[in-house]
């Protein structure tokens, strides 16, 4: 099994070009009896340390499928996937759970907060099982919610809920932060705030981050932009410089 200290070394900013996660020939086929849906077709993907990756594509193009596989929520039908030295495609359910537990943070389109827990407790839910978490209140402070620690999800706006979800994802100090349409349910102003938080976390903590979005303008924010269509990566753009969130026109 993996040991946290090794990863700390890998996280060193001087090795910014280190490939953290490498996927080769990833395919995913959903077999539903009569219908077979090929959601991913031999996709190659690399995630580098500290990289901010934006994943674009039409609905149904396979973005979530790819992200779920990267995050160990789902397994590829074929292909190889490694996180550092760890071959993910060989892991069983428990192994994948362990991988997620130690290395991955998720942010979902519909926040998926636990309604019966307050903002702070929702974050604590994850820090409870992390080995080196930041205090829940610190994570919430990072997303600008220090005033809302003891509010229940129902007492928060959509944007605030999404920021709690981000705090929850970063509080465990994940090595990879995966966000599936984090702004999908938000208006543009709130969406921008959320993106600003994600960008800031990526910049300040060096967490490798992948963000799925429908919105092409968001692409300017990332180090790398991938375009997906019908289960394939059809375009790969590297930005020399990342645009700031304020400059986005949306």
């Amino acid at each position: 099994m993996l040991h946290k200290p090794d990863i700390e070394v890998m996280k060193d900013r001087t090795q910014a070009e280190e490939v953290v996660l490498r996927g080769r020939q990833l395919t995913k086929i959903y077999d539903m009896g009569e219908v077979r849906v090929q959601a991913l077709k031999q996709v190659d993907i690399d995630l580098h340390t500290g990289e901010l990756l934006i994943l674009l594509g039409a609905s149904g193009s396979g973005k979530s499928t790819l992200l779920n596989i990267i995050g160990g929520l789902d397994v590829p039908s074929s292909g190889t996937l490694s996180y550092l030295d760890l071959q993910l495609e060989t892991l069983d359910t428990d192994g994948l759970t362990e991988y997620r537990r130690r290395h991955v943070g998720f942010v979902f389109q519909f926040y998926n907060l636990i309604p019966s827990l307050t903002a702070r407790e929702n974050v604590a839910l994850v820090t409870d099982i992390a080995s080196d978490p930041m205090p829940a209140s610190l994570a919430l402070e990072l997303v600008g919610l220090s005033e809302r620690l003891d509010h229940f999800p129902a007492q928060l706006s959509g944007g605030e809920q999404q920021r709690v979800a981000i705090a929850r994802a970063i509080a465990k100090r994940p090595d990879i932060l995966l966000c599936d349409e984090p702004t999908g349910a938000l208006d543009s102003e709130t969406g921008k705030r959320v993106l600003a938080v994600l960008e800031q976390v990526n910049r300040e903590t060096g967490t490798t981050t992948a963000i799925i979005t429908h919105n092409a303008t968001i692409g300017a924010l990332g180090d790398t932009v991938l375009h997906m269509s019908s289960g394939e990566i059809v375009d790969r753009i590297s930005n020399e410089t990342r645009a700031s969130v304020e400059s986005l026109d949306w």
Partner: protein
Amino acid sequence: MTSLSRKLVRELWHLKGQVFSIALVVAVGIMSVMTMRGSYDSLVRTQQIYYQDTGFADIWAPLRRAPESLRERLANIPGVSGVDTRVSFLTTLDLPDLEMPAQGLFVSLPSRARPRINDIVLKAGRYLDPDESSEVLISEKFATARALRPGDALTAVINGQLTELDIVGIAISPEHAYSVPPGSLYPDDKRYGVIWMGRDSLGPVYDMDGAFNEAMFTLEPQASEAAVLAAIDRLLDPYGGLGAYVRSDQMSHQIMQAELDQNRIMGTAFPIVFLGVAAFLLNLVLGRLIATQRGEIGVLKAFGYHDREVGTHYLLFAMAAVVLGAIPGAAFGIWLGQGYVRLYGQYFNFPHLQYQPSLTLLIGALSISVMAAALGALAAVRRAARLPPAEAMRAEPPALFRAGWLERSGLAEFAPSSVRMILRNVQRKPMQSVFSSVGVALSTAILVMGLSMLDSIRFMMDLQFNVIQREDLMLVFDEFLDAEVLRDLENIDGVTRVEPYRSVPARLRNEHLREKVSLQGLAPDARLRRLVAGSGQVQPVPDAGLVLSATLAKKLRVAPGDYLSVEVLEGRRVQRSVLVSGVVTDFMGTSGSMSLNRLHALVQGPEMVSGAFLAVEDQALNRVNRYLKGLPAIASVTSPKSMYDSFQKQMDDSLYIGIAFLIAFASVIAIGVIYNGARISLSERGREMASLRVMGFRRREAVILLLGEQAVITVIAIPVGWFIGYWLAFGVASSIGSDAYRLPFVVGPASFIWSAVATCGAAVFSGFLIRHRLNRLDLVEVLKTRE
């Protein structure tokens, strides 16, 4: 506290209504175990110790008279480990304030030692002094009922002589733990008591000096009861043996055993029903909880919670409900058990009768309920544990509605849209609807079963006292008298009718099957006491042949038309083959009846009668009683009315409390099932309800749509419950009872109606609870949250 346990606590609180209702069902389950099984265990333990301490006999053998020298030969019968003999008689007691003569059963005790078989336990006073011939011990119930204490005096008619006796002690005996006058089923402690007297004093009075009229035996562990019985009968026949019988035919033991069996059966059946319902409800509630929390489960897993951690989290919901129910349930059960055993103590006189449930029982009951809950939760919890994390992120697919039988039947076209919505919801979840209906049906069934027991008892009592025993007084003569005496009785002022009867001990045989019975000779034109079948139909006394109780016919494997060998156990002890001319289903005792003349002919010798039934004018009853009390030839006078009264007293004491509990328990199930069902519909269809309300539906209309489903389930459940209850009642009626009495199977129309009313009441109550929630439904809130 971890965040996950905090989630558990908060959600338990949020679902408190549902958790509470399930906990209640569990509580009743555990309670019934603790009360009924706990009482059963306590009673059995006490009974065993009592039997052992007093040397309770295995076999009793009454006879006319045998010399004490026979004892040796009785002891030598293979299989017999101990023999004791005694003298016992039933006689009249002269009690000052009673209009009716009371009865005393005189039983001898060894004057100089305690008996080795069938000893007594002294509760007050002292044992008999061998030198004081007038000293007696009396039975505790009788002493209490008559407020008699050691030092008091008692007057009895012994062998025709008024005799003054000195009470020196109060005692109890396992032979009379359930103490009923001969021929009755209910205690009548004011008018019946057991009186123990020294053998040296009692024997001579009855001309039993150096002789005995009852032998008692204990058996070696491997002895064959049947073989020993036959050997005893063979030895005692020349001495007027009246037929030996085993412990399971001993009245007190038999009735006690029937009660114990009932507790054992109920103490098993009840928890099965309740824990089964609790398991179903947990399955329902957890299933729904997990369906609504798919996203949350996904998040937990995405962040690295293990499947088993997630599974355990949901399993703890079930465990919380169990613990919440089990602890108060067990406590209440123990409390109720104490009362229950105390109630038993009023009828069964045991030393140190105490409710002492074992720790094993408590632990067993708790683990069984935990297991039931786990079983109920298992499917739902597994679903949660197995849910692939990516899958969990997706919203639950919309509920599948298909055209069902409703559409195919074409009925839908006529039904208003609200009815269509309700029926479709029922048929969308067929299994859940079926289980819910079965749950509610069980509640109805429990009521039908409980109420039918009341019906059965009422029916039996009504039959016994209004159809069979129509006499005002039943006389038992001290010894057989010739018919002359009847004319004397007829001449008593106020007596309007006298009918003689003769009762003859006999042994019936069909090949190797033998049964001891008392043959009844009845006058063919009798009106006071007739042959009545269980259906209430009067059966004519046949000119020839014997009419047997159905139970007896079954035991002897004979049917009308067969012949039985009859051995008369008195007089010339004639043996003859007699035709079985009929079989009657009756509920009390077992008997063989024939016409009086035929019986005289069978017995041969002088035409004697053993007693008479009297019809007496109401206003003359007291006077007649007083007169009869003074007649030494009369051993006992019983009045069906006073038996009926003591029965009624017992009914009032315990049965109505029992019914109240039964209704409460049944309601717990009905409310549990209906309330949870409606809560789940509300959770599944909250949006739909809110949308309807937004569209302008009134609250009442929305409620009807929501609760309609539960109403349909209830309406289906009631007839199903009637059906199940009918067969449950049948099962209970056929499994309870003994030779002493059997429970007729009766379910009155009122029982069906009341069970339905109680179930509907519980349903309506659940509806009110839900309606309250629906009224508070925040429209904006519901519509704002995503599906």
